[in-house]
């Protein structure tokens, strides 16, 4: 394979057919992954644009750039776009779509047309969301809390709610496709204990998507019914209970955090063994911890409601259960570090992002424990401490993992190498920019700066200026990979089939793969991460 001449381009999924129809009507999981990549990148920059406006407003204590009403819309649409249109579909719909069939030795996902349908639903939802944004937007916060959203807000709650409802279907269909594919489409010999851990992570993610998303769907439908048809299910004037809304909302929206972070964990679990040239430490524990996070994730939602008026006893139980999520999370972190111990580590771009992920996820996770503690949670509820915490998970964790995976599999996706030095440079900028943006927010929150206000007392200004400065650096770090990925598609070195000397079936086929992925269905006779038997690339410092 390695000797195959790359001068004459081999037939692959990218050059097999040309033209807009061949893309918009494709059922090839790899092309759909690229469609998703383009669309989520678009929404990432829309969400990022709102984030930068928020940070600009907070540069000065006075509310001088935008008014309070506009500010409410900015953080609402930042949250809704980033959560529902970028983070939820990010790794599953792009990397998962591309890699799940390749990693298990299948020709495609079980339901290719449903896969395409899921992208179209996402696009319909996206158009609704963009229309909602340009015609006025929403100001409820991404959480749609009632009764504000149902009775008082004068903004486009119905349209945003329906957009998220439709995007939820797209997410459900992706998850459904993955579960069926992983159960029914594995190549001969690809047993459950030989599956790459990326697959285990996506399996756990898909279960959450399947069981959680319908609950937010019905919750938003009821909110829409309440606004549109004057039903009263959450209306306190008629004896309806806003707390019921919060329970239903967080029943999905807490597990949704694990929809974002589990795939990132899967990515990191692929990258670390590859760049330490070792089998993963404790395969079974890492696999089981993914399922554990998915299961426990459904049992902790009320820790978002400690000050909302739930009973103290249920708060205590939810606090305890929230602590338990730390166990499978810590298993993962310890197993990654144990894998690196005495490994031949090479500091490539994906590995740098993976290092960043471990550190930032650990910080995000540990501050999560602060928030599960009833006493501290009361002190920091609705402050920037919470903002910093979940951005460490969602941006420091999920987005770092997404970028790690994009760099790791870009040679497979595009058939080209990106410039390594630029990759490392961008990884460094992202790491620095991220910490400069969000670490001051921990301090601000602990000092008492509340979230969702467009102005603040002057004594908070220094830390806010640091945070705003960091956000501009972070923006550069995010734009750079987009530029050099695009550049590499035309000018990058052609990628060999397996540039990293990685394990996994996706590296046994050509880069980029053909439409049907493999010349013939592979037969697996080896364990996952069999790095003892895989030759490392020349430049990797291993004992030969």
């Amino acid at each position, binding site marked *: 394979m390695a000797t195959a001449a790359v001068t004459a381009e081999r037939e692959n999924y990218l050059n097999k057919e040309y033209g807009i129809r061949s893309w918009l009507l494709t059922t090839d999981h790899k092309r759909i992954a690229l469609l998703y990549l383009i669309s989520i990148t678009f929404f990432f920059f829309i969400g990022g644009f709102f984030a930068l406006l928020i940070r600009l407003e907070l540069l000065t204590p006075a509310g001088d750039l935008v008014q309070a009403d506009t500010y409410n819309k900015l953080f609402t649409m930042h949250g809704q776009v980033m959560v529902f249109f970028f983070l939820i579909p990010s790794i599953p719909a792009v990397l998962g779509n591309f890699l799940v069939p390749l990693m298990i030795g*299948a*020709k*495609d*996902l*079980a*339901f*290719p047309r*449903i896969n395409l349908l899921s992208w179209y639903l996402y696009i319909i939802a996206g158009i609704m969301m963009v229309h909602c944004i340009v015609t006025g937007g929403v100001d409820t916060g991404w959480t749609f809390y009632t009764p504000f959203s149902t009775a008082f807000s004068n903004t486009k709650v119905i349209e945003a709610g329906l957009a998220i409802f439709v995007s939820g279907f797209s997410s*459900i269909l992706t998850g*459904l*496709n993955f*579960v*069926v*594919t992983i*159960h*029914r*489409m594995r190549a001969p010999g690809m047993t459950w204990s030989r599956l790459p851990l990326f697959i285990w992570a996506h399996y756990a993610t898909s279960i959450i998507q*399947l*069981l*959680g*998303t*319908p*609950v937010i*769907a*019905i*919750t938003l*439908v*009821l909110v829409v*019914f*309440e606004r549109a*048809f*004057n*039903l*009263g*299910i959450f209306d306190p*004037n*008629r*004896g*309806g*209970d806003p707390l*019921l809304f919060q*329970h*239903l909302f967080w029943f999905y929206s807490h597990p949704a955090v694990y929809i974002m972070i589990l795939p990132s964990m899967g990515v990191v679990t692929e990258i670390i063994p590859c760049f330490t040239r070792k089998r993963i430490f404790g395969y079974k524990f890492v696999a089981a911890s993914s399922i554990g996070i998915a299961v426990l994730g459904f049992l902790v939602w009320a820790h978002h409601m400690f000050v909302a008026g739930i009973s103290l006893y249920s708060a205590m139980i939810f606090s305890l259960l929230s602590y338990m999520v730390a166990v499978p999370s810590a298993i993962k972190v310890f197993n990654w570090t144990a894998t690196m111990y005495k490994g031949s580590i090479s500091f490539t771009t994906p590995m740098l992002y993976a290092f960043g992920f471990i550190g930032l996820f650990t910080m995000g996770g540990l501050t999560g424990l602060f928030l599960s503690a009833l006493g501290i949670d009361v002190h920091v509820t609705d402050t920037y401490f919470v903002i910093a915490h979940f951005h460490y998970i969602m941006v420091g964790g999920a987005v770092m993992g997404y970028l790690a995976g994009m760099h790791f599999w870009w040679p497979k996706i595009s058939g080209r190498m990106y410039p390594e030095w630029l990759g490392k440079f961008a990884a460094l900028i992202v790491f620095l920019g991220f910490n400069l943006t969000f670490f001051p927010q921990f301090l601000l929150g602990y000092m008492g700066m509340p979230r969702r206000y467009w102005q603040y007392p002057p004594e908070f200004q220094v830390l806010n200026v640091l945070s705003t400065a960091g956000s501009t650096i972070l923006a550069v770090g995010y734009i750079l990979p987009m530029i050099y990925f695009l550049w590499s598609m035309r000018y990058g070195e052609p990628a060999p089939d397996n540039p990293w000397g990685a394990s996994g079936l996706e590296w046994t086929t050509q880069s980029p793969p*053909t*439409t*049907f992925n493999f*010349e*013939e*269905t592979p037969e697996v006779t080896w364990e996952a991460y069999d790095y003892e038997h895989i030759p490392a690339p020349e430049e990797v410092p291993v004992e030969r």
Partner: protein
Amino acid sequence: MSDSPVAVETHTPELRHHFASAEQQRDASTFGMWLFLATEIMFFGGMFCAYLVYRFWYYNEFAAGSRSIDIWLGAINTAVLICSSLTVALGVRAAQMGKRKLLVALLLITMVFGLAFLGIKGIEWYQKFEEHHIPGNSFNVDDIIHDYPQIHIDPRHEQIFFSLYFAMTGLHALHMIIGVGIFTFLTYKAWKGAYSPSYYTPVEVGGLYWHFVDIVWIYLFPLLYLIDRKPLR
């Protein structure tokens, strides 16, 4: 691409290229529908959860509201849906045995049952509309309060019952409409002779969906119509 999938494809045209065998394809399809039904359970589950909470809190209003909806129309609708489940099951059987005309007839009868259900449901809703029992500004349950002077009924809480009644039966009816749409498609394909003893997965999968929607009604009927039908003295 090797030659083998092409050869298989000419043998069984329904087998899509990415499956190794017809059995794998059938397994995947039915498994996919079961998973989808699991998501549907969670979807309706949100409303059942709200129902549970409010029925516990506002029992009198729920019982009184339940008495005000027409038990006979509800019972007839329950019978209609059970019959439609039977014709679906028989239809799947007909597809397995390759009886094309019988399959088409049974699918059509199923759709007639489904449309009858929707029609009766529409009559019930219209009654509620006439009685001003639809939540909103013109909501008025003085008639219910007048009928049961011996129990305390808060008209605001009565709105919660009717909100849930309309949300639950409305979304159930939406599922019925989608089901009729699916069955229209299946009938057309069956008429064209697309299904045979070796390939009837769409009928089976569509049938699973239909049965699920029926089962939701089997829960909705007692929960909404039969809360407390004892004569009050």
